[in-house]
Each structure stands twice: as structure tokens, then as C-alpha cells.
């Protein structure tokens, strides 16, 4: 009888968990990530939290039982850098290009409206004081739309959590950790509202080099440097004014600097080895804790020792460099691009070996099959499966300082779980159930033809 109920729960998709008391997944293989694998055990969840985990914890009398025979329970996957939930989000900048040429880190123009700024034919910026492409005060948590259909898609791939960022602009705003529950109140999704400032050096769509400041990579870097100098000064003046306003000229309120000062870490784009070197030095100069994202050339022998030396964690894009789809038959690919395609997926294994803290981000790969194939490439290139799992669970939680509440299967942590038939990242593995904040979801049926990158639900014409 209990089995029948469990089956019903599985089938009906949307959870009843709120009203249900406890749920116990029994006889399943459990991969807690933070400890050894339990080959047959039980996870008990209640009120959105993991109540107990072990080989044979006492079952609460009110628990709904889920028979986990033949299934494996993992912590919910975390996408360490995502735009899921953001309206009209730009693709994450660092890996937008294919291949991996020698150009700077830029994104091809995407003609979509910016999320917050409502600039109508603003005069071009002529310097840092105009605060160009800056919305540092924006929090993803304040912008998310619960109706984003990608929430369901990525959940179906096993993601219970995204670290969602605003990605438009030089200082785009702060990312938020979101649990992918279906709720009318977006506040229910937010685990941590402000986890880091997203910085990118993305050219304004269609901008001329004589247009708005900054228009060159060195201009972007100079702008970021000036902003941090300004922020330091702003704080100094503000504090002095707060101590004793009498006789002191009132400092002007600057939301751009407020946003920067409120950020506890920054995300910097770094794909090429040159960029890794440049951004590590830059972060050290700014005295800001930094996470580098991209890592297209992270496989190069110099990358891991550098990252180790600076102690910076990195987010590795799962969108590996690929050969161009319709190449010019006359074009000769550069050796660097060929190597990026060949060796890119060995990056995580090399980082792991060197002891560099890293997490994966999907970079728009949200279809379960594609995700599986992308991770498989890293496994084939030498990454151990448990390290791949860690890079999608506990490592991102640690990088963002929330491993006390998520990232592994431990009593007291948030009940974010993925239950699969077969081992995660195997070709035939199916996600059977997803628990987010203890609420159970069924994976959405995968579309017959995986459309690749971009947002689900868009027409192909839009999704170029």
C-alpha cells in the first residue's frame, strides 16, 4: 500500500510534501558527497530539510515511504553560474565564442532588452564618472521570474539549485542562490540573495570604438579599477560624514558604488591562459576575493599552478570548445583552437590533480542528455566521477560559502536531492525524482530533439 502511494507521489509531479510530514527514501544507494557512499540506506526528509541519513535510521511513523530499490540518491546539482530565472538574460559572457581563438573575452551582440536599465538614447559615456554599463546594485533575487520555463528544464537535468546572475554590463549586479521550487512567490526560491558581483568585459551590442566609454579591453579594465578606487574613497567620505556631518559637504549617493561595496566577491571572466594570468593579478590588485569563470584553456600546464598560487576558485564551463559547425573549407584552424577542442575537457581533471577548487557551470547546457555528454567528456579525459559530482554539488556550495546548508546529503541540510536509476552521467541513466526544499518533482519529458544551447521555449529564429 505504501508503495502505491509512493508511486502516486512520483507520478503526480508536483509535491504534496508540505502537508505530508516526512518522506523516507529506503533501500537506495546514497552518495552523500561529504562522506562515504552508503550502498543501501535511507534518507529521511521533513519540512524541507534532511532529517536523517544512514544505513538504517529509525523510520518516523508518519513518514511516506519511497522504495529506492535500484536507485541512487545524490545531493541536488548546483549550477554555479546561471541565468535561469532572469528575464531576458544574456548568455554568460566568458564562453560565448566557440572554438577559442585569440580574441578578447567578448560576447557577440544579443539584441535583447537589458533587465533593469531603461536608457532611451542616453548620451554616450565619456569616462568612468558616467558609470557605463553598470547595474552593480541589482540583485538577481529581486529580478527573477518564477515563470521562466528553464526552471523546469534544468530541474529535469538534476539541478535543484542555480546561482543565478544578472549578466548584462560591466558590473552586472549580484548573483543569488536559488532553489528551483515552483512557487508564486519568488522569495521562496532564494537561499542567499547576494553572493557575488558579476563582472564582464562584454562589448555593447553594435558599439563603435568611438562610441561610448569603455570601448576597448583596456578601457574596461581601467573602468573597473577606477570604480574600486572610487568605492574606497566613497566609503571613507561616507564614514567620516556619518561620524560627524557638521561642517562636511554631504557626499553624493552613488548606487553604483553602493552595489560594489555590498559585494563580498567578484566574478571575473578568464578563458585564455593570458586572461587567467591577467585576471588573477587584477583581483589581487583590487584586493577582492575573486572567482574566475570560463577556463577554456584551463588544461594548459601553466594554468593550474597559477590558480593554485593565487588560491582563486574557478568555475569551469561545461560548454567545451567545439569545431565550427559549418567551417569555411578554405579556413585553417589555429593550433590553439585545435588544442582547445582536443584538450579542453581535460581541464577539470588537471585542476583536481593540482588541488584547485573548481565547480562546473552549464553555460546554457540545460538538456539532460547534453549535460550528460558534456560531463562524460570530462570523465573520459580523466576526471573521477565522484570529483565530477562534487564539482556540481559540494564544491560550488563551498565556493559560495553555503556548504553549511547545502551541497551534500547530511542531516540538517536543505533537502535537495536527485534520485536516479543508474549512475549520474551515464548515458542510460534517468532522473527519477528531484527534491527541492523537500518538495518532490518529476522531470519534465525531454523534447525528442535536444535543441542545444539557449533558452527552452524560444523559437529557433530568436534562439540564434
Amino acid at each position, binding site marked *: 500500500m505504501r508503495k502505491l502511494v509512493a508511486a502516486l507521489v512520483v507520478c503526480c509531479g508536483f509535491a504534496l510534501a508540505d502537508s505530508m510530514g516526512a518522506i523516507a527514501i529506503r533501500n537506495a544507494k546514497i552518495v552523500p558527497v561529504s562522506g562515504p557512499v552508503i550502498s543501501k540506506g535511507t534518507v529521511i526528509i521533513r519540512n524541507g530539510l534532511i532529517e536523517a541519513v544512514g544505513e538504517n535510521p529509525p523510520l518516523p511513523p508518519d513518514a511516506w515511504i519511497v522504495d529506492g530499490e535500484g536507485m541512487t540518491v545524490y545531493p541536488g546539482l548546483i549550477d554555479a553560474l546561471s541565468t535561469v530565472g532572469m528575464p531576458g538574460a544574456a548568455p554568460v559572457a566568458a564562453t560565448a565564442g566557440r572554438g577559442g581563438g*585569440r580574441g*578578447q573575452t567578448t560576447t557577440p551582440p544579443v539584441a535583447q532588452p537589458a533587465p533593469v536599465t531603461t536608457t532611451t538614447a542616453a*548620451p*554616450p*559615456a*565619456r*569616462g*568612468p564618472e558616467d558609470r557605463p554599463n553598470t547595474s552593480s546594485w541589482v540583485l538577481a533575487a529581486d529580478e527573477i521570474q518564477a515563470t521562466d520555463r528553464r526552471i523546469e528544464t534544468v530541474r529535469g537535468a538534476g539541478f535543484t539549485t542555480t546561482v543565478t546572475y544578472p549578466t548584462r554590463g560591466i558590473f552586472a549586479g549580484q548573483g543569488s542562490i536559488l532553489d528551483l521550487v515552483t512557487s508564486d512567490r519568488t522569495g521562496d526560491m532564494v537561499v542567499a540573495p547576494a553572493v557575488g558581483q558579476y563582472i564582464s568585459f562584454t562589448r555593447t551590442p553594435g558599439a*563603435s*570604438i*568611438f*562610441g*561610448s*566609454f*569603455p*570601448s*576597448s*579591453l*583596456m*578601457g574596461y*579594465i*581601467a*573602468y573597473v*579599477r*577606477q570604480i574600486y*578606487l*572610487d568605492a574606497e*574613497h566613497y566609503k*571613507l*567620505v561616507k564614514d*567620516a560624514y556619518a561620524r560627524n556631518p557638521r561642517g562636511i559637504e554631504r557626499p553624493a549617493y552613488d548606487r553604483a558604488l553602493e552595489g560594489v561595496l555590498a559585494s563580498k566577491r567578484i566574478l571575473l571572466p578568464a578563458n*585564455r*591562459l*593570458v586572461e587567467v*594570468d*591577467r585576471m588573477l*593579478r*587584477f583581483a589581487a590588485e583590487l584586493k577582492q576575493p575573486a572567482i574566475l569563470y570560463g577556463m577554456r584553456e584551463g588544461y*594548459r*600546464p*601553466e594554468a593550474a*599552478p*597559477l590558480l593554485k598560487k593565487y588560491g582563486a576558485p574557478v568555475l569551469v564551463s561545461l560548454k567545451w570548445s567545439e*569545431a565550427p559547425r559549418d567551417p569555411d573549407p578554405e579556413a585553417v*584552424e589555429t*593550433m590553439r583552437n*585545435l*588544442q582547445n*577542442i*582536443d584538450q579542453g575537457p581535460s581541464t577539470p581533471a588537471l585542476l583536481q590533480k593540482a588541488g584547485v577548487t573548481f565547480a562546473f557551470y552549464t553555460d546554457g547546457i540545460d538538456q539532460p542528455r547534453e549535460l550528460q555528454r558534456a560531463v562524460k567528456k570530462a570523465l573520459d579525459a580523466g576526471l573521477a566521477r565522484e570529483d565530477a559530482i562534487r564539482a556540481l554539488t559540494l564544491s560550488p556550495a563551498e565556493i559560495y560559502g553555503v556548504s553549511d546548508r547545502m551541497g551534500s546529503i547530511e542531516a540538517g541540510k536543505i533537502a535537495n536531492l536527485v534520485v536516479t536509476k543508474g549512475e549520474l552521467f551515464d548515458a542510460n541513466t534517468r532522473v527519477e525524482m528531484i527534491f527541492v526544499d523537500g518538495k518532490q518533482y518529476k522531470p519534465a519529458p525531454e523534447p525528442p530533439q535536444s535543441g542545444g544551447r539557449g533558452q527552452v521555449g524560444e523559437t529557433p529564429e530568436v534562439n540564434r
Partner: protein
Amino acid sequence: MKTRIRIAVLAGVAALGWPGFGLKIAAAETIVIQNATILTVTQGTVHGSLVVKDGKIAEVGEKVMVPQGADIMDAAGQYVIPGIIDCHSHIAVDGSVNEGSTSVSSMVDIRDVINPEDIAIYRALAGGVTTANILHGSANAIGGKTLVLKMRWGKDAQSMIFEGAVPGIKFALGENPKRAGNPPGGRGFSVQPVTARYPATRMGVEDTIREALNQAKSYKADWDAYRAKVAHGEQPIPPRKDLKLEALEEVLEGKRYVHAHCYVADEILMLLRVADDYGFKIRTLQHVLEGYKVADEIKAHGAGASTFSDWWAYKEEAYDAIPYNAAILQKKGVVVSLNSDDAELMRHLNTEAAKVMKYGGLSETEALAMVTINPARQLGIDKRVGSIEPGKDADLVIYDKYPLSDYAKVEKVLIDGTVYFDRDKEVSGRPAKELEKKKLIDKQKPSEPRPRTGGGRGSE
């Protein structure tokens, strides 16, 4: 016995990896180049040997003592000159060399965007260039900060920087700064005048420079006042740091060299007067194609001139150029260099130098000086490089023939006593590199079945 020196950076490896970064370069501690014709530039020509010790030139002479354990390079029939110095280059930069959005872009710095993997570096090396002044573009009356690099191919960005060289800044006069950001035909024809950038006239360029320098003066005054208060034991709030004005403050204090893009004589005079008004020196006038018209004034100011050998008429302000420009300026006592401003021209600056022997009748040494010791003087690095003298950096180029000849080829290039380019190794290493590339291409070929061409015949 031709080459016993260990090659520190194999060209083949360097083209693929970044060996200097992670690996230790095995520089020979002592090298002796024997039987060479050594054109020292400052000390005449020596038929003999050159000793390199710990990256420096130790001895030059007809007969030298060969230190024990030295690597011997036999350069019989070959020529050695000091490494070529290019006083105007834009290679090794990531992204645009122009921050073109604003007429004063002194907040940006080439230092931030050095790309040590730009293949142009290796190609410049193969043309004998060991040092280059990497400049911001000329889209702005006052451009970005600049710096001098050594072409240490295979090293990381920081290791490329010529340590101790005085940093610079780009100024620009004339067409480029007034046209950039403005519609063709001038502002009067603009449909959207709002987006046009000031200045749009040559007068405006002067005004822009003066205005920026005024701001820098007042910025400096604010900081001086602050520092004075601190010296008196007060605890005032410091003024805001402004990267744009900080760079110009350094110009006013002579701590940052001004390299000014210019063509027309009256504008050259304008800039020299502006500099005199504000009490600093223009370090080099770049291009300076009408410099010959105002050579005395340039000499009186003390500016160097870095020009093209014989490139002219490519725009209106270059119509009055003459190939005798370099020679005339030189004879008037101006320190003159010949530059490339171009990754391709950079690869044969030796023959650019040779042209002043034809146009102006300069000597072989004077010609060579224009791409070696003269640019070194202009960049303030002549104590270190620019000639073959004991104590200087062992930045050397070995040519197979007389280096001012069109037929001369660079055989080897040393920087700090380390071989960074070796023609033999480069050529012999190519098949292996091509094979490696072919392997990767084959590996990545899509495994689709080939379309059939014949009428059912299976053979190919």
C-alpha cells in the same frame, strides 16, 4: 660545431605552449660568439669575438679569452648587431589599441592588456627586434599609458616588460584625434550632433590637451595640499584618486614620457609650446613627417623624432613628407629613430634604416643607430641596450649577411643572453609541428560517411 648553445626557447615549442611560464629557461651562463663581424654602433666595427656572461655583454674584441665551460657559437662570415628597437609598435595588445570613446583616455594602460602570445612578437623577433615601445592608438588628443617590452617570446606578460624603463603616454595631433568619433565631412554635416566627440578641429585638439593639463595641475595641487596637511600631523580625507589625471600628473612631473603622434609643422610647434607652457618635455615626436621644416625648434625643445623612412602621401597631412626627413633632423642634432607602426614593417627595420644612406647620405653606423641606440636614447634605456658594449644587456642579432642589405636574413636573436629565435631550429622544427597539427585535424574530422561521387563503384 656551429651551434653548441642550448636553445632556451625552442621556437617550435614556444609556438604551442608557454614554456617560460611554468618551466625554467635553461640559459647558457657564458656564450662566446666567434669569428663574427660585430657592428657595435657606438664603438665601431670589430672582427672578432663577443663574450656574453649572465645575460650581459662581458667583452668584445679581436681576441678574447674563452672562459671555461662557455658555449661557443661560430659566426664565421656572419654579422652581429645590437637588438633592433622599434620606437612605435602596436603588437602584443589584446583588444583595441584605441580607447576611442573619449578625447582624453589617459586612464587606460597598455600594461593591462599585454598579450604575450601574439604571434607578431615571434615574427618581430625573427626580424631582429628585441625591444619595442608599445603605444596606444592615435584616436585621442591624449591617449592611453604605454610601456616598453622586450620580445621575450614564451614568457608571461609581466616578464615581457622592460624592467625599469620609464613608462609613457600617447598624445596625438591632427586628423586622427579630430576625426575619431566625428562624422565624415565634419560636424556640420552630422545628422546626430549629440554623439559627435569634441574636438572636431585642430584648434580643439590643442584646447583639449590644455584643458586636461589644467585639470591635472589642479589635481596635483589638491594632492599636494593634502600631503602637506598630513605632514603637519593632520588627518584630512584624501582627494579622490583619478586614474586619468594621475597619469597626466606624472607627465607634468616628468615621470612619464610623452610620445606624440604628429605630422604637420605648425601642430608640432603648437605642442612644443604647450609643453613649454606647462613645464614638461615632449620625449618623442612620432611620425613627425614635417619635422624637417621645424628641425631647429625640435632640437631646441629637446624632443626626439621617430619617423618613417619613406612612407608618405597616405593622407592629407602626410603630403609634405620627404624621405630626407630623418637625415635632415639628424644633421640638425635631433635624436632620430625609424619605427614601424606596423607588425609587418617591424620585421625588416634593418632595411628601413638602410634607406637613410640613400636619402640623405648618412653613414652605415648612423643608419644602424636609427633602429638601435637612437630609439634606446629616446626611450631612456640606452644604458641597458642599443649598442654592443661591455656591461650592456646581451640583446644581439646575428645576420647571415651584411645587415643593411635586402638579402640579409636573421640567423639568431638573443635577449639577455638567451636565444629566443634560431632560424635553423625554426625551419627544422616545422615538419614536426605540421604533423602534430595534421593529427589534431584528422582526429577532429567529423566522422560522417563521405558523399559518394562515382556511380556505385566502391573504390576511391
